[in-house]
């Protein structure tokens, strides 16, 4: 039995080369589902101001400032 001399990825295919010259190109499994993308969050200036205010309040309560 001939040994595998090379094994690599070529685009969408896995390629295996054997010592006797045999070459196998097999399709890499396609994903049939896609991961959901996280929704982007672009807060407004007023929301940012409110978050800073809330953080300051928390820090005051904690005695940090």
């Amino acid at each position, binding site marked *: *039995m*001939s040994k595998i001399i090379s094994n690599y990825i070529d685009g969408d*295919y896995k390629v295996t080369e*054997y010592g*006797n*010259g*045999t*070459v*196998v*190109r*097999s*399709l890499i*499994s*396609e994903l*049939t589902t896609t991961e959901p993308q996280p929704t982007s969050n672009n807060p407004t200036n007023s929301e940012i101001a409110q978050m800073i205010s809330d953080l300051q309040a928390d820090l005051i309560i904690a005695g940090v400032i």
Partner: protein
Amino acid sequence: MGNLINLGKSELISDNLYEPFSYESSIANPGGEILNISGSGFLSHSVVNCAAQESRLRITVDGVILYHGNLIDSNNTHGITSENNLIVKSTETVVSTRRAYSVGVGQAASPGTYPYNNSNETDGNGRLIFIDSPIYFENSLVIEGFSNITLNYSIRGGLLT
């Protein structure tokens, strides 16, 4: 048949061993080449199916198209296999669905004879061909599948390495 080597002491061993291969997966629209082997081996099973859309399978052995079919059917299967490959899952009845490995074979599968090369790619005449012995290839094997939705495929055979 593999060559036999006499190692002495009446011990014989074959130097031509087939390394089994199997591919069970799917290819996305529009499909294309699934497997391409430059070498020798055999093909014992190659079927495709998809849901209620066109599915096309082409098998080329040593440069000659030996199966080319197109099926427009709901979840049905066409290609080449052996009856021994078909099993019935315990949760399914005999007449409703059999399984050729991961690919279901519905009751309405149309049998055909091998080789099968349907030159009309759009008439929906895909066939399920039952073979009693593997198809051997000397130099090359190319399997292609096409569909306008995800196409499931199941391929098995052996590689002379």
